[in-house]
């Protein structure tokens, strides 16, 4: 399949790990739980999003330099080969060891598969830096007047020499203020879907201002991005002019499917911590049982999605089912945890990190296409109910 990363003496990868995600996950778990370089990340509890970003960059470098995070990405882009199940196995392993997933991993899980297909020159050149944590990217699709109705976005993209100029305003860019670049959807042509183009723009340039937005949990999860004649060279166009909407739709299978697998690992891990922290009480048995059952349903459903992605099947609107299950599982899990841990959940200093995650879970039915949008998609595109 591929050459082992023999340039790096730290690598503990062996040929058999390339055979199965299970063997890989077991070896990665052994590495992370015994290598002292991984110790700072086990059970790490961030004080803020910015602290977390700085601290976990070290984990990204460790995982990249020793080869672990390069499995599941093509060799052309600096990976070691293997299908996306290896990435899914890495996420599960990190959760098993109570290591937070570095935010850039979740972003690149959504953006890079798109680049591999529509702009391989960009993924080939930039994936290693992104995987290693040297480079951080955001995603800028939504606008103040274009949330669920994404196709109505207005950020202008006009030709200028051997590139384009961008003007407008983006919002809800996860990790925007900590990123050097952003994948951005802009209007290069007329109204509607067909006038949209996707580009990769440098954020550290005159003409771009990024302002963090404080979210419900008190952290700067996302940003507003103001563009005033910002520059993007022609070779940073992803796909072709006017192909932006089609690419955004292609992206959804990763955003809704692979993302769900990543999150189920979190829910299982947090339920595990809750049962370690709490005192058994029959009053909460059904609520915890329900949360677990939903997390298990999400796990098996997204497992199948990851396996389909690994076989390079083109997924359709059924990925909205994964997203809807994710919402149900996420809300059920956190509500059960909060109920089970009782009044101390609100006031115990040692549970601050868990409270933050609880508060952030309230976004589940809103981000990435609201619960209502997903239900409409499932009804019309999966179940064939009539469109108005």
């Amino acid at each position, binding site marked *: 399949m591929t050459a082992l990363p023999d340039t790096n003496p730290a690598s503990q990868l062996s040929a058999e790990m390339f055979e199965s995600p299970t063997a890989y996950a077991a070896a990665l778990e052994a590495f992370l739980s015994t290598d002292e370089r991984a110790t700072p990340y086990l059970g790490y509890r961030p004080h803020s999003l910015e602290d977390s970003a700085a601290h976990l960059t070290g984990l990204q470098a460790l995982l990249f330099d020793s080869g672990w995070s390069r499995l599941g990405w093509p060799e052309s882009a600096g990976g070691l080969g293997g299908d996306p199940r290896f990435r899914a196995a890495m996420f599960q392993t990190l959760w098993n060891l109570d290591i937070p997933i570095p935010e850039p991993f979740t972003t690149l899980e959504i953006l890079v598969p798109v680049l591999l297909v529509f702009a391989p020159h960009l993924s080939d050149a930039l994936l290693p830096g992104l995987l290693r944590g040297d480079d951080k990217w955001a995603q800028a699709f939504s606008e103040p007047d274009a949330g669920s109705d994404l196709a109505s976005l207005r950020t202008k993209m006009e030709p200028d020499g051997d590139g384009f100029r961008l003007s407008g305003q983006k919002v809800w860019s996860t990790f925007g203020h900590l990123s050097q670049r952003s994948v951005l959807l802009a209007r290069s042509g007329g109204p509607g879907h067909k006038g949209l183009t996707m580009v990769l723009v440098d954020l550290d340039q005159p003409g771009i201002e990024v302002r963090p937005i404080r979210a419900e949990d008190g952290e700067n999860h996302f940003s507003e991005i103001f563009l005033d004649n910002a520059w993007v060279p022609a070779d940073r166009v992803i796909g072709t002019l006017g192909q932006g909407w089609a690419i955004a739709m292609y992206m959804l299978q990763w955003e809704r499917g692979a993302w769900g697998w990543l999150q189920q690992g979190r829910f299982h891990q947090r339920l595990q911590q809750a049962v370690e922290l709490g005192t058994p009480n029959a009053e909460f048995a059904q609520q*915890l049982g329900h949360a677990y059952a939903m997390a298990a349903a999400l796990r*098996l459903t997204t*497992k199948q999605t*990851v396996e389909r992605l690994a076989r390079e099947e083109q997924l359709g609107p059924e990925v909205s089912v994964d997203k809807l299950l994710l919402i149900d599982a996420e809300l059920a899990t956190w509500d059960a945890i909060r109920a089970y841990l009782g009044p101390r959940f609100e006031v115990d200093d040692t549970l601050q990190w868990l409270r933050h995650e609880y508060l952030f879970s309230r976004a589940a039915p809103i981000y990435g296409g609201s619960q209502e949008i*997903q239900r409409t998609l499932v009804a019309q595109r999966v179940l064939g109910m009539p469109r108005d």
Partner: protein
Amino acid sequence: MMDTDTLDMLRTSLRHVLTEATNVPLADRLGELGWDEVVADDPVTALHTLFTLKGDTVSSADALGPRLAAALADALGDPQLTTATVGLESPFGPSSLTDGSLTVDAVVFTPPSDNPVVVRVDGEHLAVVVGSALTCTRLTTTDGELAQFRLTGTVPAAQVQCIEGATASIAWNAMVTHGRWLLACELVGIAQHVTASAAQYTGERIQYGKPIGTFQALQHRIATAHVLVVGAARLAEHAGHSGDEWSALVAKAVAGQAAETACTQAQQCYGAIGFTWEHEFHHYLRRTYVLDRLLGDWRSLEREIGNELMNSRHVPKIGML
């Protein structure tokens, strides 16, 4: 493993067997299909297909009883018990073995004759007694068509074979696990049928000059049900392949909930016609209520899951990449 064409042919044959009007027992009709060979060849696919179709067609044939006996016989390593009738827990009272006699109170799906009946006594042992020693009464149930019978009676201990200790518990749990998986498949079959049928109906029923399925209020009801049904289907598939106790427990919990949710949402989409016997829906609703109660209703099973998580302080993961 069965290939797609074989599976399609099997589905067609099974659908016919499950829906034909006849008094011939299901086991005999399946026998004509060469069912035993199909099951021996690929038991998980065969049984999953049969029980999902049974839910889809609301067939009232007793497919479950023989499977419970087979699972128990297999777990006990006693082939003679494949002809047994397994008496499930009765809502009217326990079975117990005391003072030299066995008191039976149990529920079955087909009346026993002179074959063995196995019941669980005092929550731990198993008692085997000949069926003709017990009184069998047909129960009136929420589902008028799926027959259930109550077995009662007191039998001298000398006529009872008792299976004790871990052997009994392990075998009974294996039977429960097998039954929960099959019931999960059947409930998923019901839920899939009801969801698809209601979605189709909303495309046909016109009000205010357009199909009522164009209204988001109804779209979201059906989508909500569908999501749970997909999750339940994945869990039921996994429970079959893994055969483990925990997976079957979780699968039946989610399947029961999915079927109830699907029925609730579908009922509202059908409106008044769905409330009548002129529509098929009532069969599915009644069947859901009855099947959900067997081997633990979904709320009880969720409590069982939650208690296990709290007491073991361990959250297992179902399914590996």
